[in-house]
């Protein structure tokens, strides 16, 4: 029993430290965002790094998911004569769940890892200390540009993934399921609503924070040399991914409640 208790208390302590640390970092981001100088150039650099350079990954992933789902839905529903429902099912699934969740998971893997390892290396080589010693703020110079870039680019990437995913579905629908492309397109347009789109789009802002803030936190908390950079990178990706997947349930619930209200 004691053997189990020790790792559990260590795990619990780490979780509490993480919640507290991320909370404080987020507070500092909000506080410093509106104070003093704003680094537009750094934000635009990060938008390029995070957004533009993730485009191929997002397009390939979204296209593949759309195609696979269309095939699976089509072949599954064909037995019950429900092949015609593929466009509607696919569109709603992509807009509400698959688009935002898969795009965010891909970004967590690519960008979360990049942020944590880059900041971690800067800590190890004392560049973060140098930023402070030169009278500037690492929150302003490092964290805020990355958080803002994620907040700006992820919703855009999600929108793109939604389009590409549905396009993938349409291609398989037309070529493999023998559905008329015009019918497919019409069905998407007529059956998916703006609420479907906004539900997924709205989630993407939360997912952006789930990626950027923990990744910056783990990077900034690297202490004992380069070995810890790798550990921080792994922690950043795992934590961001868990937050996205678990957070998705609660956000979906929240958005449903919100939709019912209006």
């Amino acid at each position, binding site marked *: 029993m004691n053997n189990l208790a020790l790792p559990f208390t260590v795990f619990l302590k780490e979780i509490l430290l993480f919640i507290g640390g991320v909370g404080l970092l987020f507070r500092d981001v909000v506080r410093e965002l509106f104070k003093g100088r704003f680094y537009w150039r750094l934000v635009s650099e990060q938008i390029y790094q995070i957004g533009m350079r993730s485009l191929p990954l997002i397009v390939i992933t979204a296209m593949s998911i759309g195609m696979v789902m269309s095939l699976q839905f089509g072949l599954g529903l064909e037995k019950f004569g429900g092949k015609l429902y593929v466009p509607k099912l696919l569109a709603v699934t992509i807009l509400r769940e698959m688009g935002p969740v898969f795009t965010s998971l891909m970004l967590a893997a690519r960008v979360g890892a990049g942020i944590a390892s880059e900041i971690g290396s800067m800590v190890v080589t*004392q*560049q973060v*200390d140098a930023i402070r010693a*030169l*009278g500037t703020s690492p929150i302003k110079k490092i964290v805020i540009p990355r958080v803002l870039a994620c907040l700006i680019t992820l919703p855009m990437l999600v929108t793109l993934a939604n389009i590409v995913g549905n396009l993938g579905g349409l291609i398989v629908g037309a070529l493999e399921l023998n559905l008329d492309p015009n019918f497919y397109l019409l069905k998407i347009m007529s059956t998916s609503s703006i609420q479907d789109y906004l539900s997924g789009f709205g989630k993407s802002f939360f997912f952006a924070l789930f990626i950027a803030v923990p990744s910056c936190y783990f990077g900034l908390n690297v202490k004992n040399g380069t070995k810890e950079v790798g550990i921080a990178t792994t922690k950043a990706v795992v934590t961001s991914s868990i937050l996205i997947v678990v957070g998705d349930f609660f956000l979906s619930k929240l958005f449903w409640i919100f939709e019912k209200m209006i």
Partner: protein
Amino acid sequence: MSEKKGFIEVIDFHKSFGSKKVHQGVNFFVRKGECLGLIGGSGTGKSVLLRSLVGLEKPERGQILIEGVDIVPMKERQLVEIRKKVAYAFQGGALFDSMTVFENLAYPLREHFGFSEKEIHKQIMEQLKEFGLEGSEKTLPGNLSGGMQKRVGLARAMMMHPEVVLYDEPTAGLDPYNTKRIQESILSLKEKGVTSILVTHDMPTVYAVCDKVALLQQGRIGEQYTIEKLRQEPPGAMSQFINGESA
């Protein structure tokens, strides 16, 4: 600030890492224009003490007075003004590896002064010349030798014309030629009236540039002597440390 005491004054400084008490009441002062050499065995907390003087670490107890103002309770925002006065020369240079030498040197100027790009260019070229780094402005730090990286770090620290410079092992791992160049840079700044604290294990550099030397031992300043006294008759514990007879 009392005339008797210093431009920098450390009073009853206590710092621990976990259960390890690194500093247990460090006291010393440095007068304006003076250069203090801080020596001591590895792990005695010399660099931590130096980092605390610019607010990069916070002690658990004690005061750090810069021109009579205690910087310990200051927040990051308040420390900005202190950091314009007190420059820190990192052991490895701590250069921003994604920026060229020029951009590294321009960093403090662009952040804190309203200079035009033309003026910034002029100041950087003068600084590069002073530190013997002409022609390296477009080079990335990764392509520089260790000695040059240290000199660029020192040049960057000096861009804001600080009143105090804190050197963390400025000559560690350097060949005699580069060591001499760093010593010359420190002496040149000293001649301009810059107050400095030098953390080092390199005794020839201590003899070359320092006015007094303090030995950090067992969490306190064990002994402190002027460089003249050290030259004449190396005293007890410090003599043992210098001769490698104690840590």
